[in-house]
């Protein structure tokens, strides 16, 4: 059909344009030039011979991985008549809601700025630059006075905004009827039910081996684990992103995880990448941003207090401060419903040549943001690699957890999916919790916004994030949240207040995620 062919050529053109600006392109070009010296490359069949050379030397595989990466991240090209904002978010009322929310954040940051008389950004004097450079590896020892700073917002503020989202074209009446949603989310997004989830997450089924279940001490490793590790090593040897993504749906062996995630996210640490990270570090040294204080405060409040993550405090500063300076992150706003905040150079208000983004990467951190980085510190110890992995995880997944959009992996859909699953498959529990004033989403929201980081034990968290990568979707977070409620249903049925319900669900550190998910999806009698 002609429309599909035009879609395909448009997609090819977009991917080609994207890749032309990448390191891979220059490397391929260099390799092609160098290959001309090889005896098997003949002038008469130059194109075919070079293509063959790329195939044999593994460069074609690298290109395939890059294309696969682009396909995973970028949405399908939309209709030619659709404006850029349609690609960010197709529903007008959601775009408007995101715009209002952003305005609130900007106002909050501006008032913090004026109240504390601290500039948004300032150039560090040379002495201060030297000092920071010296203690770059131990910024955690610093104890700056952060008492006046407050996080720009916390997840519960964001939840209130989502609860008030309304589709102006959707009439569901003010009074309770069969058409109103019983949960907190009132927008009619399409979410999957359990039969659809079973189809989607088929590799989590009862008949398929899983790490997190079939590698437990009681199960002999010959039954599944050994073979799975062997296959994992083979996947790594082949350096195939798509195969790695398929493989990791059954979980990643601990020893292979760092490499597998890097392969799936298409991160290779080239000298250019290390250089880029060093450049970002220089930017941190040269300019001090107000956002830095927010990052410090967040790390001190969250990761530093966590038994598992406090050892990584210094790494977190090294990653997050650089992240704020990274303008390459701006490109993800093409498919993010959010937009980067804008400012002007002092004295040049309104002059477009002096318009800049603030912070340089356009992302204002909120309370708990550093928890997106913390678990990665277990896998990567080299700062520039850790940085690249985090950045890619952010622009693929994490940004969806704190922006308002209709995307199936966006936080709004996840909330609705959670509530719908609970309401459909645990109606008694749902009703009971509503009756006692403990809307389930009020408890599970913080888990999903943080992708469960800081709530689960780290080995369990990493098994969960394996599946996020494997399925290229965050829906598993909503399914796990529902599975946790299902698991503690008996206790929850006995509580009589929101506080008591929260107490039942306060400690998730002993949970094993894969059995919970498997039982909820595949073994619950419906």
């Amino acid at each position, binding site marked *: 059909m002609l429309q599909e062919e*035009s879609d395909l050529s448009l997609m*090819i053109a977009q991917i080609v344009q994207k890749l032309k600006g990448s390191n891979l392109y220059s490397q391929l070009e260099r390799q092609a030039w160098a290959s001309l010296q090889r005896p098997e490359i003949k002038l008469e069949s130059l194109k075919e011979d070079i293509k063959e050379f790329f195939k044999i030397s593994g460069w074609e595989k690298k290109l395939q991985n890059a294309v696969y990466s682009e396909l995973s991240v970028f949405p399908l090209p939309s209709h030619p008549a659709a404006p850029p904002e349609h690609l960010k978010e197709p529903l007008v009322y959601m775009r408007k809601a995101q715009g209002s929310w952003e305005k609130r954040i900007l106002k909050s940051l*501006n008032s913090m700025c004026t109240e504390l008389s601290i500039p948004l950004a300032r150039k560090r004097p040379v002495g201060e630059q030297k000092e920071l450079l010296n203690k770059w590896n131990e910024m955690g020892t610093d104890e700056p006075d952060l008492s006046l700073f407050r996080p720009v917002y916390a997840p519960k503020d964001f939840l209130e905004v989502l609860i008030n989202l309304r589709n102006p*074209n959707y009439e569901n009446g003010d009074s309770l009827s069969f058409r109103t949603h019983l949960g907190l989310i009132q927008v009619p*997004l399409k979410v999957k039910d359990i039969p659809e989830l079973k189809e989607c997450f088929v590799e989590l089924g009862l008949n398929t081996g899983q790490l997190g279940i079939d590698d437990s001490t009681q199960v002999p490793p010959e039954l599944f684990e050994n073979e799975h590790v062997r296959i994992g090593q083979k996947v790594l040897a082949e350096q195939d992103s798509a195969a790695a993504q398929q493989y990791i749906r059954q979980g990643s062996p601990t020893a292979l995880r760092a490499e597998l995630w890097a392969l799936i996210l298409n991160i290779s640490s080239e000298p250019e990448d290390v250089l880029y990270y060093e450049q970002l570090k220089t930017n941190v040294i040269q300019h001090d941003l107000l956002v830095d204080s927010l990052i410090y405060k967040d790390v001190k409040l969250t990761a530093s207090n966590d038994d598992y993550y406090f050892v990584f405090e210094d790494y977190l500063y090294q990653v997050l401060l650089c992240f704020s300076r990274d303008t390459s992150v701006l490109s993800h706003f093409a498919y993010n419903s959010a937009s980067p905040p804008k*400012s002007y150079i002092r004295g040049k*208000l309104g002059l477009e040549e002096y318009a800049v983004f603030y912070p340089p990467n356009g992302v204002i951190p909120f309370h708990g943001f550093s928890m997106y980085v913390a678990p990665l510190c277990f896998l990567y110890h080299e700062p520039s690699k850790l940085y690249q992995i985090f950045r890619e995880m952010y622009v693929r997944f994490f940004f969806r957890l704190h922006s308002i959009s209709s995307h199936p992996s966006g936080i709004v859909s996840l909330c609705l999916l959670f509530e719908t699953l609970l309401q459909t498959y645990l109606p008694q529990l749902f009703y009971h919790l509503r009756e006692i004033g403990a809307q389930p989403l009020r408890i599970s929201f913080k888990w999903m916004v943080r992708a469960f980081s800081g709530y689960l034990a780290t080995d369990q968290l990493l098994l969960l994030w394996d599946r996020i990568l494997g399925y290229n979707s965050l829906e598993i977070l909503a399914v796990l949240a529902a599975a946790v409620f299902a698991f503690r249903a008996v206790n929850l049925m006995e509580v009589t207040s929101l506080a008591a319900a929260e107490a039942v669900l306060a400690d998730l550190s002993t949970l094993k995620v894969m059995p919970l998910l498997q039982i909820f999806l595949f073994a619950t009698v419906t």
Partner: protein
Amino acid sequence: MSRILVPCHVKGTVALQVGDVRTSQGRPGVLVIDVTFPSVAPFELQEITFKNYYTAFLSIRVRQHTSAHTPAKWVTCLRDYCLMPDPHSEEGAQEYVSLFKHQSPSMTFPKWLSHPVPSEQPALLCEGLPDPSRVSSEVQQMWALTEMIRASHTSARIGRFDVDGCYDLNLLSYT
């Protein structure tokens, strides 16, 4: 063969419902939009483009003149074309849609569009569809175009966030 925009006049929606519009409380599920073409010369319609707004199904009827002497008759080009797979959820609710000539028998002349809810109207046009056998050369052309655009920008990789070394900012801007 070049394609051009056809000027058209889109009338307001008319609800289809039984009974008196003024007194009846019911909300009709079907609305009709008349589209007329002021130019008299016949044309061959290739594509209709519009942005949907909560229309679930679309039917298009066309009044065709077959010859000078026979009276014009109404022909159904498209019946119940699904725009929203689940009308109770947001999928497809605000999407941009193109309908092509090959999806229905030949369309010439005025249309009678029926749909449940007002939709913002069309008459946009996009560039010619690439010939299947020329996809590769199309890509080359687009590549050349993007090259020209890229050549005028500096590389964004090691991006500068300051203006001439200065990042001394006012407050954040709300616009």
